[in-house]
């Protein structure tokens, strides 16, 4: 319970966001939209970490530090992924996953 807001509410919000991200990752074909689904998934995990930290262990800061490191990893992942996407676009003039069937060129 955090000043009237139960922990369960945060966890349910995080769960819905996570599975919406999973749905988008399975359905989408464009590489950039798949990357956006991954960002959704990472964010839902962050909400869970922060809510657990604040509500179950208010004196500690572990959840917050994990969230900071997850954000840093997400930034690194997004930059490398977008570099790869732009490289693929330059070669194939297309970023649909179904049209990419070779890794070597």
């Amino acid at each position, binding site marked *: *319970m*955090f*000043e*009237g*807001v139960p922990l*369960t*509410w*945060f966890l*349910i919000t995080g*769960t*819905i*966001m*996570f*599975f*919406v*991200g*999973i*749905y*988008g990752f*399975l*359905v*989408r*074909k464009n590489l*950039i*939209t798949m*990357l*956006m689904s991954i*960002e*959704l998934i990472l*964010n839902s995990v*962050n909400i869970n970490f*922060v*809510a657990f930290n*604040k*509500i*179950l*262990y*208010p*004196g*500690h*800061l572990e959840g*917050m*530090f994990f*969230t*900071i490191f997850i*954000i*840093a*990893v*997400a*930034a*690194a992942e*997004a*930059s*490398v992924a*977008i*570099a790869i*996407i*732009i*490289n693929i676009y330059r070669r194939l003039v297309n*970023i649909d996953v179904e049209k990419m069937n070779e890794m070597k060129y």
Partner: protein
Amino acid sequence: MTTNQLMFAIFAAVIIIFSILTVTSRRILRAATFLLFVLVATGGMYFLLRFNFLAAIQLTLYAGGIVVLIIFSILLTSHIGEKLEAPSVKKIIPAFIAAGFGAALCILTIVQHPFPQEVISSSERTDIRVIAKALISTEKFGYALPFEVISILLLAAMVGAIILAKKRKD
């Protein structure tokens, strides 16, 4: 209904509605804008939980950095008015079943689990000096090693991104 509950309801509604719009919108630039709303609402949730430093990081790095990067790459790789083709029903049904089943299972488990109720949650803000000291401390509850590892990861990502996106000479 207290103010906190009201704020939580607003943030949760924004997060859920716009994350669904992010994965279903057929215009890719709009999907990126909806993602921006989701990330800002997440930052609001951190403010609600009194993690001010974390909310500032969320706003500058996610909403200011990653979304701008995504929008630039959208502008580089597709036309603005372009509509994505709608996913086929053959793809939607299994994905919907997988996501819906997983969500139902998780929510059921969360609702049934008895979380401790008696923990008194403090609403005081975290002092920035505590965070700074923990990030460079090597003692218990110190994060010097992950901090250094993440700095090497960021350097490697930077070099890798430059090498990957560079134009080949051949």
